[in-house]
Every structure is written in structure tokens, then in C-alpha cells.
């Protein structure tokens, strides 16, 4: 009897709190699922951009990082899209174009329609790199050699259907030649293969390539404009006359499940860009060589839709 009374009392307390959830949200720590291992670039950046969440004027509650890696992100995102709560206390980080490409190519439980973007914190464009001792000095050299030797240019990248792979597909198409993609387990081993001379070229993150620039030649950026902060001298593919746009740029940001109350989404969408713009976050991100690109909810929604359309076309005959 006593137990039931306590339970009833607890329920009575909990119910009104549930109704008023949006107004005083959040009243407890919020979790952020990362679909990759601890220490990877996404995990590393997520820990930085969420470190001031508990500050006054921001969320007022800490954000706890939960890593749920496996099968190239599929395990974490599948779990999130099917099991996460829709009360705003469980968020996840997205990687575009990775999760969109996967949702097109594989039978996944997630797609852009059952997830709600909140805000974007970073964008890391892909670059085409070759070893310092390579005979290629420009994209043109590489294209010319590949024309005479179809399928002989090996190009490393972080795996299938990640930004690197999308950039590779675009480059291959724009150059009008046959190359050979060598998928690796992550960006670091892919870059190692370029440095060690196991492959002739590589598509990799701008930030990682920038750090290894003394042993590399960076031939082009797969983005719409040059990177003024880190690599002002490296031209884009467009400048060199090849039709490669920013579709492969690796965007990172925060999302929640569809069905989360609109009031909670609006609140998060208002707070998160402010949190990413915090001075301490900006400084740590700069130190880490991680490019920041803050986008609000509307901009991310538009970007997701564009990518979905583009990737559906690109991956159709693959």
C-alpha cells in the first residue's frame, strides 16, 4: 500500500513537470551521442563545443558525451533514430554527407526525414594530397598521367560513403579519368598511406593535411572558396577548371529525433549557435586546427535537403 502511495505521489509530482517541460527545459544533464570512437575528430570536436553548455545564458545544464561506435557510425545512428527519447534530453551529432549517403546506400533506420537538425558547428573540406616526392605538382599533372594510365592512380580515403569518398567520386568525374579508390579505416591511416608512399594520392581532411603539410603537396580543395585561415595558397578545384563543388565538405552538428516538442527544438536551436560561438570554444577549436562553421537550424535544413538530392543522383549508378 505504502509503495503505491509513494508511486502515486511521485507520479503526481512528475506529471505537471512533464507538461511544463518545454518552458524550463532542461532540468537535468543532456546527452549527446557520438557514433564514432572516443578520440576521433568528431568526438574531439564535440567535447570542445559542448564544454561551456552548463554556463548561465546557455543550456544551464552540462552536455554528456556518449560514444556508440560501430559499423562506420551505423550502430550509433540506428540506435539513436529508433530508441532515443524525444524529450530533448538525448541529442546526437551528425556527419554530413556521411549519414545521408549511408541512409541512401544501406537499409538504415535513419534518414533526413526522421531527424531534426538543431545547428551546425564545423565544416572540414576535403583536399587532394600527394606525397612531397610525388611526380604530380598539380591536379592537371595527375589528370594527364591518369589519362595515359587508367586505373593506375591509387587514391586513399577514410572509407566508403564518407566525405572523402564523395569528393573522390566527384574528382574522378570532373577529371574524366579512371582512378582507383583505396578505402582505409579512418582518416589517419589513409593519410599515413600517402606519407608512406603506399598510394599515389589521397583525399583527406583539410585540418589533418594542414598539419602534415611539410611532407605533403596539397593540390586542391573541394570547396567553393579557398581556406583563408589555414591554406590561403591552395586553389579550389573550380579555380583549376574542374567541376567539384562543396558537396563533400564534412559538416558536423547536433540533431534530435523527430517528435521532439517544437518548443524544445526552438529553444535548442536558439542556444546552440550561441554556445558554438563562445570565445573559449573558438579558441580551443582554433588550437586544434578544427575549422568552425556555425549554421542555424534553417540553414542546416536546407543543406541536408540539397545533399540528399545530390547524393541520390551521385550514388545511383554505384
Amino acid at each position, binding site marked *: 500500500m505504502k509503495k503505491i502511495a509513494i508511486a502515486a505521489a511521485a507520479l503526481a509530482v512528475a506529471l505537471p513537470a512533464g507538461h511544463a517541460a518545454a518552458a524550463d527545459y532542461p532540468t537535468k544533464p543532456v546527452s549527446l551521442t557520438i557514433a564514432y570512437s572516443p578520440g576521433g575528430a568528431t568526438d574531439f570536436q564535440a567535447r570542445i563545443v559542448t564544454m561551456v553548455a552548463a554556463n548561465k545564458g546557455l543550456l544551464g545544464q552540462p552536455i554528456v558525451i556518449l560514444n556508440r561506435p*560501430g559499423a562506420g557510425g551505423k550502430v550509433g545512428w540506428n540506435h539513436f533514430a529508433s530508441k532515443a527519447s524525444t524529450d530533448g534530453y538525448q541529442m546526437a551529432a551528425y556527419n554530413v554527407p556521411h549519414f545521408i549517403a549511408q541512409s541512401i546506400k544501406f537499409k538504415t533506420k535513419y534518414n533526413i526525414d526522421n531527424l531534426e537538425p538543431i545547428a551546425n558547428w564545423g565544416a572540414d573540406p576535403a583536399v587532394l594530397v600527394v606525397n612531397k616526392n610525388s611526380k604530380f605538382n598539380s591536379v592537371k599533372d595527375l589528370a594527364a598521367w591518369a589519362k595515359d594510365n587508367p586505373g593506375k592512380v*591509387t587514391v586513399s580515403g577514410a572509407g566508403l560513403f564518407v566525405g572523402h569518398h564523395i569528393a573522390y567520386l566527384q574528382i574522378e568525374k570532373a577529371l574524366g579519368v579512371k582512378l582507383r579508390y583505396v578505402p582505409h579505416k579512418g582518416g589517419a591511416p589513409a593519410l599515413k598511406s600517402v606519407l608512406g*608512399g*603506399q598510394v599515389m594520392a589521397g583525399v583527406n581532411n583539410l585540418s589533418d593535411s594542414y598539419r602534415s603539410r611539410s611532407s605533403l603537396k596539397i593540390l586542391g580543395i573541394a570547396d567553393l572558396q579557398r581556406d583563408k585561415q589555414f591554406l590561403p595558397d591552395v586553389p579550389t578545384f573550380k579555380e583549376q577548371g574542374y567541376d567539384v563543388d562543396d558537396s563533400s565538405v564534412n559538416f558536423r552538428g547536433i540533431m534530435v529525433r523527430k517528435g521532439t516538442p517544437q518548443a524544445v527544438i526552438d529553444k535548442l536551436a536558439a542556444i546552440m549557435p550561441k554556445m558554438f560561438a563562445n570565445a573559449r570554444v573558438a579558441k580551443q577549436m582554433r588550437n*586544434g586546427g578544427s575549422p568552425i562553421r556555425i549554421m542555424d537550424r534553417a540553414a542546416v535544413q536546407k543543406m541536408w535537403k540539397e545533399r540528399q538530392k545530390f547524393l541520390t543522383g551521385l550514388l545511383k549508378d554505384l
Partner: protein
Amino acid sequence: MEFLDHFGAVFTWSSMLILCAGTIGGLLLGATPGLSPTMAVALLIPFTFHMDPAQGLMLLGAAYTSTVAGGAVSAILLNIPGAPANIATALDGNIMARKGAGARALQICFISSAIGGVLGILVLIFLTPVLASWALKFGPSHLFWVAILGVTIIGTLDSKSVVKGLLAGCIGLWIAMIGSDSIQGVERFIFTEELEGGVHIIAALIGLFAIPQVIEMLEGGRKDPRRTVFEVRRANIWRSALETVSKVRALVIGGVVGTVIGLIPGAGGQIAGLVAYDQSRRFSRNSAKYGTGESEGVVAAESANNAMVGPSLVPLLTLSVPGSPTAAVLLGGLLIHGIFPGPDLFQKHAAVAFSFINSMLIGQILMLIFGLAIAGLAAKVIEVKPPILASAILVLAVFGSYSVQNSMADVAIMLVLGIGMYFLARYGFSPAPLVLGIILGPIAEHNYVQGRIIGEAQDGIAPYFLTGWLNILLIALVVLSLVYSIVSEIRVKRQERAAAAEAAS
């Protein structure tokens, strides 16, 4: 000798305090099953946000060195390797503990860890520029042969017979195939959603080693609940030190194997201990005693897996290429403080870089001091009554396998594999070759597939895998290892037959 100039920064009150905290914390984290060095370092990085760069890196350096050694504690006392690196330590270490020499085994383990660790860091300090480019030369074909070299020791590792060892290895290879393959993303043997991410090595490790023991203890415990299974004899530190130092051959093999394997990016320090253990047994005069509580086995395994720590950072510090998962996490720790590793690291950030390396050197010494201090006390763990100990191990096993990926699926996988292993163990199978199969399968497969793609673009697959001096050297080692196994197997059989004939006459 430039590193000597930077020792000053390590010997300040605040730095020493951080180093001690990092070391003690690392030992505890390392001793907890499931918390591998990689995870321990990843968890500590946010704490360094607020420290100055040199001290933040000291904390990470000290934690890295001590978690590697800490993993040996649970391997020796409970037969649960804290991380894959400690599997070989458990083979003889746990038997020593069961015979009452737990304290001595721990002391020997910490002393040989420190010797191997210091050796590895010295290699890092003096040979980094020479070795960095060498380490990069290892491509898919070489890593494939390294993995095959590992496969050749599966049969002889801790099994009653070669056939059972190989069978267990095959089961391991099969378990490793479950999930999406790492290159094409093809799904294999996924019958339920829980298996989508494959079998995580830590979950498998905990299940295969811990659960059969838990079941056995509970069986025994019901029969006689008051029984204490193991006694713990006191051990003299100096005697243990003398014993460790007298195993020169095992120390040298452990140090060299650990250093070389640590340098190879992607080979994974996970197998350093096992390879060193196996080589040390082959060259030892009392190789028959391995697997029966021979301290030499502990010396070889532990000196190897700590010797690996320093060299595994060589490609990271000079070329900004992390050679191991832990190095990748450390890269994050360096970046957060604005330190970009690369050829100019030691010119541009000499103070920070050297205090990081020095802290690992001092960390080895602190690890030795604290390790020896707790050895006697920690060994008492196994005096606990079996039913209580079994429950505690079960709690740790569930907690450990859950914490790796925050996934209940891993807990279920851990329990299923563990229960399966309990029955296999009754038929003379051993978990070590099975785990080795799980570790080596993906390395061999991944590098074979990559090598094929690259080989096809070049002169063909066969020349890619079979030519070049490094390939030929590795193939020669594989052949040697196989021939040795066969010859020693024949010799053992002949001796058995002679003994049987003598007994009959």
C-alpha cells in the same frame, strides 16, 4: 641529450603531484577490466583543458604508461586481462597467483614493465628521427605478413594440443568476421540487431576469460562456501627484483619485440606481449615450464607491452601520424593545446615535447614505486571467498563490457561468449588462441583487401605481396616459425613415445 635540460619542468611540486595522480589513476583504470589505455586517455583529455600544455600532457603521458601496466593486475590476480595487451601476462601470471605467488608475480610484473618501458622511451628519445621514416614503410602487404606471423603462433599458444589451438584460433577468426566488414561495409553473420557492430574485442576478452572462471568459482563455492581457494605468500621485493633481472633473455626478447611491434603503425600493440611470450618460450631452456606458472613468461610479456609505449609514439610525434588507437587519442590531447606534432615539433615546442616524454620516463619509475607498494595488498584480493569474488568479477565484467560502447548488446555478447567458452574449456580449449584469432583476423583481412586493390593498380597482386626485401624477410620469419613449431612438436612426441616405451619395458 637535450631532453636532460628539460627535466627541471618535471621536478616541480605541481608537476609531481599531477604525475602521481596520473599514475595512481592510471593503475586503477588499467586494472579495471574494459577500461583500456585508449579509453583512459580519452576520458582524461577534458581534464587537461584547464591545465597549461606541459602539465596537461604530463597527466596524459603518466596515465598512458601506467594503464598499460595496470592491466596486468587483473590479468594476474583474476585471469581477466584488462586490455588485449595483457593476455600473455595472464597465461603464467595467473597460475603463479593460484599457487600462492600472486604478490611475487605482481612485483615481477611491475619491475619488468618498468625496465621495458624505460627502454621504449629511450628508443623514442634517441632514435625517433631514424625510425620514423622506417615505420612509415610498412604498407598493407607487410602488415598482412605480420598478422600471418601472429597466426603461426596460435597453434602453440597455451593449448593441450596444436589441433585444439588451431581450432580455437579458427573460431576466433570467425567471430571476428561478424558485423559489417571494415572496407566494403558488407554485412556478415548479422542475425540480430545486436550483432550489427560486430563483436568488440574488449567484450570478447572479458567474456572469454572472466565468465568461465565465475561459473567455476560458483560451482566450487556451493560445495564448500568457507573455503579460501588461494593463499598469498609474502614476497620480498629485492628477491623479485633479482629474479626479474636474472631473466636477461626474456627481458631482451620482450624489449626488442615490444619496440619493433610498437613502431609498426597499425600492427597494434595488442600482440606485442603474445609474440614476445611465444618467442621467449622458444628460446628458453625451460620452455616446458611455460604455462605452469613460470615467472619468465610474465617478464617477457610485460617488458614487451610496456616497451611498446614509447615507440608507438614515434610516427605521431615526428609525422603527425598516429600509429595506434591510443596515439590517435593522444594526438587530440596535443592539438587541444595548440601543439601540432611534426618534424619541427622538437624545435618549436621543445619544452612541451620534452616534458611530455620526460613525464613518461618519470611515470615509469612512479608506476614501479606505486605498483610495488600495492602489490602485496592487491594480491590479497584472491583470498576473498569464491562466491563473493565471483559476484565481484561478474559485476566488473558487466560494467567493463557495457562501458566500452555504452551498449547492452556488448554485455549480452560477453555473456554468450563466456558461457560458450566454459563448455569449450572442458574439452581442453583455451581462450588465448581464440582471442588472438579475433585480433588478427581483421588485421590480415583488411590489409589483404587493401593490398589487392593497390596490387591490381600496380604490377599485380602476387608481386605486390611477394616481392621487396621487407615482404621476403617477413615471409622467411613465417616459414621459420612454422618449421620450428613442427620440429618441436615432433620432438615432444618422440620424447613421449620414448618415455612410454621405457615405462612399458
